[in-house]
């Protein structure tokens, strides 16, 4: 039976063998693996791409002070993005799960309709939640748009919920009981962190500071795009998004204001996406050439 870190080793190995470049988590607070520039930006434009990585994902409003067996303000996604989408991607995906020791003749695997949308990224995709015995373990998406731009070729994104998979394999009802390695549990590693960050997100974070940050990051992003520094500009989009999530957790954003904030992040994301495609074009779409060689 695989422990938590073995699941990650397994996926790294599995996808590396199938041509993925394995990269590291991004060093900013992201809400999901999708936010990592290795997905958001690389999905844009004509260049082929095949990447796999773990992404710690922060969802401040989902914090439960370490008291809920399923919800956390931070969890780990395993993200795979392949462009163009391979024809046998469903089989490739199922094989990655089967080889973790999940027998599909004993457990009910299902692709259940769930289209994906990120209003802040201006991104949409069609796909499924993959269920094992009714539990969602993966989000499986054919990207159609990012930053408001139509994608061609289409990328396929697999987002594995690592804790869910570990709970399933290890037969645990509580996320904190997952074995991280053979001696330490997920709770040993993270329970205190969940408590402190829940308190921070919901109670202690300075609303004024966050509001200021949001505005500052937004201005910085605009300035950076103007100077052609697309990658740092995208960092600012991630930072804005996280500041917004924090403000929401603090209950500092009214329903009416919410739409306004989301619109501001989406505008930035679109500007950056357009600038990124321009920049890659100016560089001559290097990965296209590499593939041709």
């Amino acid at each position, binding site marked *: 039976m695989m422990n938590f870190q073995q699941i990650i080793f397994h996926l790294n190995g599995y996808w590396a063998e199938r041509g993925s470049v394995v990269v590291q988590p991004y060093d900013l607070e992201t809400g999901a693996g999708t936010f990592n520039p290795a997905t958001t930006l690389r999905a844009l434009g004509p260049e082929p791409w095949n990447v796999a990585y773990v992404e710690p994902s922060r969802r401040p409003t989902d914090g*439960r002070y370490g008291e*809920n*067996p*399923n*919800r956390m303000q931070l969890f780990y996604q395993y993200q795979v993005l392949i462009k*163009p*989408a391979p*024809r046998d991607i*469903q089989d490739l995906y*199922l094989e990655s799960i089967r080889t973790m020791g999940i027998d*599909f*003749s*004993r*457990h*009910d*695997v*299902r*692709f*259940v*309709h769930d*289209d994906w949308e990120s209003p802040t990224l201006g991104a949409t*995709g*069609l796909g*499924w939640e993959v269920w*094992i*015995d*009714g*539990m969602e373990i993966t989000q499986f998406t*054919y990207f*159609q748009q990012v930053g408001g731009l139509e994608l*061609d*070729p*289409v990328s396929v994104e697999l987002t594995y919920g690592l804790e869910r998979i570990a*709970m*399933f394999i290890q*037969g645990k*009802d509580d996320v904190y009981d997952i074995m991280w390695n053979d001696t330490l549990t997920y709770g040993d590693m993270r329970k205190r962190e969940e408590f402190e960050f829940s308190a921070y997100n919901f109670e202690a974070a300075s609303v004024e500071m966050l509001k200021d940050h949001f505005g500052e990051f937004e201005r910085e992003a605009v300035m950076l795009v103007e100077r052609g520094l697309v990658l740092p500009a995208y960092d600012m989009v991630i930072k804005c998004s996280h500041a917004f999530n924090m403000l929401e957790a603090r209950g500092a954003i*009214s*329903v*009416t*204001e919410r739409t306004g904030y989301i619109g501001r992040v989406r505008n930035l994301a679109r500007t950056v996406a357009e600038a990124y495609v321009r920049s890659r074009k100016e560089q001559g779409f290097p990965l296209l050439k590499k593939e041709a060689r």
Partner: protein
Amino acid sequence: MTAKTRDLLVEIGSEELPHGIIADSIRGFKEGFLRCLKEERISFFGVDEFSTPRRLALLVRNMAEQQETFTQERRGPPVEKAYDRDKKPTKALLGFLTGNGITPDDIVVKESGNTEYVFCVRKMGGEKTVTLLPTILEKTLKTMSFPKTMRWEASGFSFPRAIRWVLFLFGEKKVPFTVADVKSGGFTFGHRVYGNGKIAIEKPSEYEKKLEKACVIPDREKRAGSIKNQIEGITAKKGLAVPEIAENLFAENADLTEYPHAVLCSFGESFLDLPAEVLESEMIEHQHYFPLVSKKGGKLSNFFVSVSNIEDNGETVPGYQRVLLARLEDGRFFFEEDKKREFGSFTESLKTVTFHEKLGSVYDKVERTRKIAATLAEFLSVDEATKENTDGVCRLCKNDLITLMVGEFPHLQGVMGRYYAKASGYPEAVSRGVLEHYLPRFAGDALPVGIEGAIAGIADRLDTIMGIFAAGQKPSGSKDPFALRRKVLAIIRIIIARGLNFPLGGLIRRSAPLFEKISSVGFIADVEEFFKARTRTIFSDMGFAYDEIDASIEGALDDVYESYRRVRALHEVRPEPGFEDLLVSFKRMSSIVKEEEGFSFDPKLLEEEQEKALYRHFVTNEEAIGKSIADKNYKEVYRILSGFKPFADSFFDHVLVMDPDPTHKRNRIGLLKTITGVFSGLVDFSRIVPEGE
């Protein structure tokens, strides 16, 4: 002539289609394909349809191997313009020949309207079906419409999900076809787990059997039926049953599986403390699980059924249960969190929720609704306690919109409000009203039991109707984005069901100042007109005849309920023998009265026996009529009216109203006016359209 036929099989194999679109997709596929066959004049005998998450398939039986043949005639230029002096073809003729792809030898000359024309007469059709099939399928796929489609490969073709194989057979012959990056073949795929790779299909008729052998039941109805049988088998022993709200799950689970197996599961009894509506929503909406209720009493149990796509081996149960457990924990968290706040305190937060750009926040709406409800309560002369409780309902009725639970399950609005109001210690009349102000939510839904919810519900809807009119967005034609028509219907249903007597027009006018910042008072006339027109339509939908409505609707906005009772009374007495004739007599009286201006009435001037008799009968009944109208006993008035029949008949048979003597004429008109006048509050006889007219 008996044409040769074959069966046709076409299967579009795809990655899992969204369960919500399968029914519409297979219908669209079938209709589109058959439409194309018809256009191509290819006959067939019958069609079977198959659909699972991974395939849409049609088996068309006894399809002709050839198109029907038919003769096509096309008229070209007149003969004299077709050839020049040298008998050579002119440009006009040459153009006609090229246009039809024929040579001068193919031409026939025929007369048409005294002129000789050149004709192209051709035998058309007769083409081999098999050569037409690729185009037919291509056209079918292009014309199908879906709520959402995606692209997945280089050609840019779009479909709800990626197409991965196409099985296309005409008889035993494979039909070549390409869509996106897929080339058709003579094989299908079975169940994801039990199916063993490609399954060759030699001929259409073996399709269903071979798939069933590969653990796919391709017939959607058969899967739904199988789920139903399996669940009945499981629940019968336990005295449990599937509740009505879960009926849709049979089809839904059929659309989520190819090889369904029902599995009995359970959750901890302690969760039964949560509102049943929450538990049911968690099971039905998120997990597509069947909640189970006791056969007697319909009480929710802690058992449920999940439908698996593999054979039951007992190992899936812990997983199904664990997922639900997590959801129920969440549900409990939402419920407990929401209950931590005093329910009334949510009202303040409604200021942050926009109701409508021009009409402000939901808080503003609630404030207006309270005022409208207060006026209505005054009109209805309810007691002080009821007034207070009604105001309580209005203040609280939108509070649950910002609770965590309604955020998760929007359709539980009202339901949760009731629980939370109760938990915060509000009186039953208030908490019930919070739920009931939404009733009825749809045709056939329950109506408010308490008067508080009824008043709040009318006020809330009237606020929306008036507000939207004031904002200049009144419904037009088929556009009614705020469902205002349905809101009027709900108001009228409540009024009728509860027998509420109040001036609706008065309520509208008294509420007008609430909207003065948004619009000039002019919109009020539009609102009233809208209500009048809707009332007519609603009465007509209830089965009343147009003339019955016209005769009884005067003053409807002064009291909708009485207007309804008047039309109903008229409708009910109308089929009685002789009543139609009586109506004709009274219609005649009221026409005379309306047309003739001069009148006066003195009983002493009555001369003829028949007019005296009519008057005597009137005098005898006058008080009873007046009293019955005052008592709103309309059927009694119509009963008394029936008694006028012999007197009215002999009056018109023997008495000349338009007497040459002006004194008599004026007096007789006066008599008729006196008689019809007593009925004026009940019915306008002039609007009656007698049968056959």
